[in-house]
């Protein structure tokens, strides 16, 4: 599995396409509804899934562990929403921590971790 993280609009999808031969059709983008196409070659918007998890009381790390065999060769994309100041509002704080924990777990399992900054790739792992 290859993990791409970075801020909003930093070129994460473009990098998935240029570097991991992902096509637009291969990308499933998570919304805040808990739906995940685990068979997709590339799953994006993990931060949205994390927000759904917080609202539904689901542990995002456990959710991913349950489907491990399906994403272990995928490209996963998440916004690094966990770098800002501590947000006001309990839900936003829980969301930020859930997304941070999920990315930490996925990083530990990833073959490569790339962070995008202004369109430039920084290999973290």
């Amino acid at each position, binding site marked *: 599995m290859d993990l791409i993280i*970075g*801020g*909003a*609009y*930093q*070129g994460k999808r473009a990098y998935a396409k240029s570097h991991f031969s992902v096509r637009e059709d291969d990308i499933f983008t998570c919304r805040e509804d808990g739906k995940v196409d685990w068979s997709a070659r590339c799953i994006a918007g993990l931060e949205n899934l994390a927000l759904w998890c917080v609202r539904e009381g689901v542990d995002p790390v456990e959710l991913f562990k349950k489907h491990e065999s399906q994403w272990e060769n995928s490209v996963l994309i998440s*916004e*690094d*929403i*966990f*770098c*800002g*100041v501590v*947000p006001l509002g309990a839900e*936003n*704080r829980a*969301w*930020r921590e859930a*997304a941070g924990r999920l990315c930490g777990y996925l990083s530990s399992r990833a073959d490569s971790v790339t962070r995008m*900054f*202004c*369109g*430039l790739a*920084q290999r973290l792992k």
Partner: protein
Amino acid sequence: MTVFISGGVKSGKSSLAQKIAVRLAGPGPKYYVATMIPYDEEDRARVRRHIADRAGLGFETLELGRGVERCLDLAAPGATFLVDSVTALLLNEMYPENPAGDADKNAARRSIDGLLKVAREAKNAVFVSDYIYSDAIRYDDFTENYRADLASIDRALAAACDTVLELCAGNIYVHKGEWEL
């Protein structure tokens, strides 16, 4: 040489940019292209702080809240430019008439064209932007569009510049190219 610098607030971007511009300029002319148009006392205090910061460094200040590429015509030949900041430039380009009107949808495109012209034609240019893309907040459409537009400018500059630096609490990460002080 062209350098793009971004990072969080108060991470040391402006002062690093000044040092790099001074070094790149050597004995040549150097200009501080100030893009912020102060609207209130808080803004004016920030301007005074920045002016004090660069006092004695030998910059001539060009106040260009819009149409940043005009710095090329206003400067002496062989000049070095420090454009601070991309963030303020975009905001001003979005509101060409007054801050209460509707945002100009071509602001990002116009900003990119102007900044890339400076990057192409100046002997040296250093650009400062703000990294505002990594927090757990759902923004309103206005703010979200602004973030998307600023990111498009950042990516264009990062692609065009020789060196790209990220500042984090005064620490420098080199994303592209080389640099030295």
